[in-house]
């Protein structure tokens, strides 16, 4: 049986200044890593909930996004009569012709301006967005230069307030409402009446994409195959969920940089833990000798010191979790290389994320503590007993 945990915990408490300083170093490393992971997790969650599992996004073949796609109105007329498309309560096919373009807005974090997605959308398109709700104000009126902004847009762009006016197209557009749809991409968009948006951009006949909802999973696959194979249309059909999954690439640079910085810091933290534990081993040499005399094996001593280092680092990991908790639900945004616009989302510090932070701390402790523990275990009994 190993030495009691209380032995390690009390030793950490005895040298509390060193323990706190080392734990804080580890806490900062864990906090940096968790902040990056919370950002990625927030983005992933927002993208995951942005698509409907039965919906299909149809764009012009070889278009990488809705923004660069051109969809003729005539094509839409052919697409919406395809078999397998779900029907709304009023019996209409659930198919939405949409136009997507970009607006450049001055933001809180981007005084030089940032691209925001403007979507011209029909009533059918609104009906196809789950959890869509108007948080404040009213919906835009058809045929008028009125827009509704996503809640993240309202939060991050001072001009996008109810009653505010944005200039684009052929005039000023009034913000009449704020919308939300859970944590989805809708929160990062600005919506207006399809015909008015298209008309202002001189694209009444050539819009961007079509969103379809299949009647069931079987029809879903069949519809995709049908659309992809239809050479008259020259379109590409992909599940809406996959379209948003592909946008995770936007998080890649942040994830890489953040993880890289955290790993560099982790090396430093490992050395901090190592230094602390070497000092502990030196200070407790006589104790180590005594434990060996009592019958504890070298392996038992090694295990005990590694455990102590892991405990120390886990304390750091827990502090790191506490440091990063205030970030939870803070709204931020990243520029997407797919849509060339900003995608807003909330940091998400989940319990799983915090657990991984504590485990990351523990790993640093185990790595940093191993060599001092090995040096403790290798001490000859008599030499250890003679040390002061």
């Amino acid at each position, binding site marked *: 049986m190993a030495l009691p945990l209380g032995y390690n915990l009390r030793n950490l408490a005895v040298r509390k200044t060193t323990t706190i300083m080392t734990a804080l170093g580890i806490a900062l490393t864990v906090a940096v890593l968790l902040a990056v992971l919370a950002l990625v997790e927030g983005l992933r969650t927002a993208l995951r909930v942005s698509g409907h599992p039965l919906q299909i996004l149809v764009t012009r073949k070889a278009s990488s996004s809705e923004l660069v796609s051109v969809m003729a109105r005539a094509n839409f007329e052919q697409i919406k009569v395809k078999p397998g498309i779900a029907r709304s309560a009023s019996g209409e096919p659930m198919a939405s012709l949409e136009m997507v373009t970009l607006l450049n807005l001055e933001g809180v974090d981007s005084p030089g301006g940032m691209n925001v997605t403007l979507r011209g959308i029909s009533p059918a398109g609104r009906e196809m967005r789950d959890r869509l709700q108007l948080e404040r104000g009213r919906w835009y009126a058809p045929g008028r230069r009125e827009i509704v902004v996503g809640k993240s847009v309202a939060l991050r762009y001072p001009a996008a307030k109810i009653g505010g006016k944005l200039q684009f197209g052929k005039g000023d557009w009034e913000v009449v409402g704020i919308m939300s749809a859970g944590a989805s991409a809708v929160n990062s968009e600005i919506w207006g009446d399809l015909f008015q948006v298209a008309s202002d951009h001189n694209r009444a006949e050539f819009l961007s994409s079509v969103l379809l909802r299949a009647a069931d999973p079987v029809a879903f696959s069949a519809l995709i195959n049908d659309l992809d194979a239809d050479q008259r249309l020259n379109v590409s059909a992909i599940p809406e969920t996959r379209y948003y999954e592909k946008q995770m690439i936007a998080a890649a640079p942040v994830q890489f940089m953040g993880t890289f910085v955290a790993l560099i810091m982790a090396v430093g933290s490992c050395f901090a833990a190592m230094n602390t534990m070497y000092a502990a081993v030196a200070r407790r040499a006589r104790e180590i000798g*005594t434990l060996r005399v009592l019958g504890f094996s070298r392996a038992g001593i090694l295990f005990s010191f590694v455990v102590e280092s892991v405990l120390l680092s886990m304390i750091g990991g827990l502090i790191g979790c506490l440091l990063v908790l205030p970030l939870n639900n803070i709204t931020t945004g990243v520029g997407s290389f797919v849509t060339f616009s900003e995608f807003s989302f909330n940091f998400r510090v989940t319990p799983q994320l915090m657990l991984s932070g504590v485990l990351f701390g523990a790993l640093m402790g185990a790595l940093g503590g191993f060599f001092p523990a090995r040096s403790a275990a290798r001490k000859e009994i008599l030499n250890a007993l003679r040390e002061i």
Partner: protein
Amino acid sequence: MPDPIIITRKLRREFIRDQFHVIALEDVDLEVQPAEFVALMGPSGSGKSTLLHLIAAMDRPTSGEIKALGTDLRALSDRQIARWRNQHIGFVFQSFNLIPVLTALENVELPLRLTKLSRKDRLEHARTALELVGLGDRVHHLPRQLSGGQEQRVAIARAIVTDPDIILADEPTGNLDAGSALEVLTLLSRLNKEFSKTVVLVTHDPHAAQFASHTRHLEKGQLLPNSVAV
């Protein structure tokens, strides 16, 4: 006559210390009978502690034979020695060597953590050992909250808690006042007489040696004949 519990033959221990070749023990032949109380006496550097460390398997001889309880200590691996020491040896240090962050009870329980006893049994044994040394009312005290004599009695409780066959004490009264020293020596004597424990006591204090049934003297690493005292 029963077989000796400790036997050494031509036991030799040499060191290289600061480039000097030091012979700490030279051809030591010693026999200790079961339930005997032996005092090893001699001046500083005479090799008495070295001999005790070899008996406790805390060190390995350069040459010669050493057997305790019939086991050839040279033949055991590190891990086997650790286990053997835990089961058969109780060691009492001059400077007590209690773990400062553990209470008296936890210190005494420590060697029992290497046995298969349940936690309840371990604590019960530890409490009994502390009561035996007269510290039943100090179980939750940390070492720094005890006097030197009390600390040494906790150390003795720790040494006897596994019910070892041999108790080895390395100048156990060296850091104690006369009153506390008397208590500790009386306790060792009681363990020998009442519980038939074999005790080997290293001391340079003739008064302490009087508690032993036999006294052996070492001089410059050599064990002097039985009757010779320096």
